[in-house]
């Protein structure tokens, strides 16, 4: 064995480790909520201030909670994808969580870009967002029949995420 073999192996291992580290996305912080019951809340609905929504209403269903806001730029990128998949009937019920928004702005945004949601809950002060560990809109939670969070998408849902992660998991959970 050449005397440079060991240092070379160590160097390659170090480079590999650093390369992996550099290619991780620091924005994707694993949520501690996965595998835990979705935090409970009760807030008014966006379209109807007199009606309320609580995750308990969705008990027994697999559903998506999509956090969005009219001021959120990446939501515009994501929204057409949700609209499209909802139109094709491929999605489970999607509940919107209108996060730190103004009621008028939120309603206008849905009127303009389409409303794929069963309903949107209205989280005016972001308190629900804090309980769900929201730190960058859009975020999406997949919640199973027993109310446990199974998957969290941080940032916009892309067709790839939809096809490879969300839809297969929905199918499995709906069994």
């Amino acid at each position, binding site marked *: 064995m050449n005397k440079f073999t060991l240092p070379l192996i160590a160097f390659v291992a170090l480079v590999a480790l650093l390369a992996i580290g550099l290619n991780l996305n*620091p*924005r994707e*912080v*694993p*949520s*501690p*909520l996965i595998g835990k019951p979705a935090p409970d809340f009760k807030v008014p609905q966006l379209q109807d201030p007199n009606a309320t929504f609580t995750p308990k209403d969705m008990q027994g269903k697999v559903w998506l909670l999509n956090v969005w806001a009219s001021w959120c730029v990446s939501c515009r990128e994501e929204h057409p994808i949700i609209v499209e998949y909802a139109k094709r009937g491929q999605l489970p019920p999607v509940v919107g969580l209108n996060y*730190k928004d103004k009621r008028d702005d939120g309603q206008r945004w849905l009127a303009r870009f389409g409303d794929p949601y069963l309903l949107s809950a209205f989280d005016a*002060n*972001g308190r629900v967002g*804090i*309980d*769900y*560990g929201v*730190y*960058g809109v859009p975020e999406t939670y997949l919640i199973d029949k027993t109310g446990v969070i199974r998957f969290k998408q941080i940032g916009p849902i892309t067709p790839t995420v939809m096809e490879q992660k969300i839809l297969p998991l929905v199918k499995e959970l709906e069994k």
Partner: protein
Amino acid sequence: MKLIFAVLAALCFIHPALAKEAAPLAEDPVVEKRMIEISEELRCLVCQNESLAGSQADLAKDLREEVRGLIKSGKSDEEVKDFLVSRYGDFVLYRPQVKPVTYALWGGPFILLLVGIVVLVSFLRKRGKQIDEAPLNEADRHRAEALLKDVQS
């Protein structure tokens, strides 16, 4: 030219009105002090290289308000941190907890140090063996003594 001066002068008067109002000071300095102490140990997830105490992100403001509320309701520092960790994960702590997943993180540097010492010691031993022992003979010793005397005198 006069016009420019006039405009500048006018701007001087307008400016204070446009300036942002100072944020109101917290009602309770004790709560505020603890809030800052706790949030300096926490990472703001929006701008990840800033602490929760120093960040101007909207979420950081909300979370500071949340921390204030928790302090006022009598929660301990640990309970406040647990509140945030249970929502945002261990990543919010600048000082990670010691537990099985973080053993490598806490112990890693010491293991590296140990490996370094072992490598260094074995290297030095090996090198020590490679140097030929050349014992001083009588003639050399006399020469050396003579030289030393020469230096001293």
